[in-house]
């Protein structure tokens, strides 16, 4: 007598559970879940604040002042020039407002391109397998052993005369797609065997349909986490190249500002405000990206998160190595 009743109760509870998840509740659940990782919240807030400098700044500061000889040179911070001026007469506050978005643009373009290539190759390798997989994986593995930043130096030095923000981004992206490829590939490998993919395949869906409607949506958390990581790596690479003098020569990006400061001995001459502005902004940017990616990672792979360091470490050199 009691058995069917219990089963009924269980099935009713289950039905209630299924019914309970409305889209709004799902979004709310995601928000609550995100709030449980304070790192992500802090990182995103800091990122938004940095983006805001680029959006809101031009309303208050004349961006034309970021050009050379628009102010008296070498002035320390004062009421008229809150962040001082540099050797060539740029208003450093205007440089910050113009330069930060440029640096972010390099990072975002490079990150997006690298991620696009990585996602495409990762899905191809993971989903098709066989020879395609062997070639893509082999290529990525070989390129991972190469010190990318030093190779980027060769490329950038060869096209130094024609380099612009966009070309810079493409140069950086050309050697930044390997980690996304590996991450996405390994995820595709596990997703490929899931029942819903198999069902979709057996129901006669075309490969493109399976990839776009079944595979890709489930890859989104990993793609988001990869995007932040590859953007951070791209910014690191581009700022490093620029500080070596290999950036867009006429654009006041943060890296180029550091380069000019080093070039004109700002350190020894005691012009601390010249290099402090780009450094503070870049450090804030890296911390924001680090917190965001750590938070996203915790959401994307809650189970493997604890063991993550162990797995990654054998192949990835320390952050910022080679520069």
């Amino acid at each position, binding site marked *: 007598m009691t058995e069917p009743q219990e089963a009924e109760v269980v099935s009713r509870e289950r039905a209630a559970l299924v019914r309970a998840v409305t889209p709004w509740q799902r979004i709310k659940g995601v928000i609550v879940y995100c709030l449980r990782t304070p790192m992500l919240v802090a990182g995103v807030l800091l990122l938004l604040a940095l983006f805001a400098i680029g959006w809101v700044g031009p309303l208050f500061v004349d961006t034309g002042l970021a050009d050379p000889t628009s102010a008296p040179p070498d002035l320390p911070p004062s009421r008229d020039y809150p962040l001082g001026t540099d050797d060539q007469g740029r208003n450093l506050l205007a440089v910050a407002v113009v330069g930060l978005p440029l640096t972010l643009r390099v990072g975002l373009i490079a990150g997006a391109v690298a991620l696009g290539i990585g996602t495409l190759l990762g899905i191809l390798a993971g989903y098709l397998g066989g020879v395609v997989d062997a070639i893509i*994986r*082999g290529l990525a*593995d*070989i390129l*991972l*052993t*190469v*010190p990318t*930043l*030093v*190779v980027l*130096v*060769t*490329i950038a*030095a*060869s*096209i*130094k*005369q*024609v380099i612009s923000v966009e070309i810079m981004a493409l140069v950086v992206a050309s050697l930044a797609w390997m980690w996304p490829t590996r991450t996405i590939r390994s995820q595709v490998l596990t997703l490929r065997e899931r029942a819903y993919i198999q069902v979709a395949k057996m129901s006669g869906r075309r490969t493109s349909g399976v990839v776009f409607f079944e595979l890709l949506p489930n890859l989104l958390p990993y793609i988001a986490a990869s995007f932040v990581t590859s953007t951070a790596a791209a910014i*690191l690479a581009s*700022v*490093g190249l620029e*500080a*070596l*003098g*290999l950036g867009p020569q006429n654009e006041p990006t943060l890296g180029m500002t*550091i380069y000019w400061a*080093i*070039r004109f001995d700002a*350190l*020894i001459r*005691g012009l*601390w405000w010249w*290099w402090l502005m780009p*450094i503070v902004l*870049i*450090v804030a940017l*890296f*911390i924001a990206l*680090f917190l965001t990616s750590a938070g996203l990672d915790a959401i994307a792979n809650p189970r493997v998160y*604890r*063991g*993550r*360091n*162990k797995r990654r*470490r*054998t*192949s990835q*050199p*320390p*952050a*910022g*190595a*080679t*520069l």
Partner: protein
Amino acid sequence: MADIYGSDEPGPRNGGDAMRRVLARIGLFFLVVWGAATLNFFLPRIAPGDPVRQRLFRMTVQGGYTQQGVEEMVAAYQEQFGLDQPLWLQYLRYLGDVAQLDFGYSLTLFPTKALDIIMVALPWTIGLLTVTTLLSFLLGTLFGALLAWRKSPRGLNILAGPLLALSAIPYYMLGLVLVYVFGVILKWFPLSGGYASGTLPSLNLDFLLDVVWHSILPGASIVLATLGFWALGMRGMMVTTEGEDYMVFAEMRGLPDRTIFTSYGVRNAILPQFTSLALSLGHIVSGALLVEVIFTYPGVGSLLFTAIQESDYFVIYGIVFMVVLSIALATLMVDLVYPLLDPRIRVGGQS
């Protein structure tokens, strides 16, 4: 990279198979080095306006030969640099030269070979980076192990946050701050250079002390910025090790804490750290290019910086090739030696 060496396919591992994998790994090494050399050869040639030719041309113009026979001068230079031959012949000749580490002449210090200039700078960089990498490894690993150790003082965890933050920023940024605070304001340490100006490099105690004195600030910025990486890695491994039964058993046997910590904990957790160390040692040539620039330390980084400014392409390509070569060598050695250290990889493969 380990993927290639320890192949995924399960199967009997006999001697021939291991031999095949070793040969494949060595083949990969040559592939990487050849790729780098080829890139160095073709990049300037496909780049808009062939920068090397432009640079040579500009040099002849600057040399005051503008009035007469510019064409002949360029032709002479082209012959000297082998630029007048068909591309494939240039390429073969180039590969032959690179195999002997001959990168051609420096364009700014013409009769000097690029390799000679690089060889002067190389010991400085290798010295600085070897010491700082080892120091950072030791301190970081110890700190990471203590972070995971249950019986460490609580205050230790406060340090973890700042270290994490430091490892997230590029280390030349830290260098700029350090040089300003300790060099410009406090004047405790020299601002720049690898040794006091006016002295000549020689092998006596005074000079060596001077070198160490000049290396403290650049060294400190590298150590501080990489410490977090080692600490995090070690903490991760140590946490797993702490949960093992043999740790509980060791404690129940009443072994002293120090013994449990070093012989049971650290000893079992440290193996992956050694892999990372070997890989980082491969980076000692390129390790901290910009730190050197900031401190005008007479190493490869400063050389690269000036070479880029003066468009001294043969020096740039030479440095890049040397860096790729050293890192490829280091990963090759790690991949060949690691299976001897860790039998699990030899038997089980990577999957």
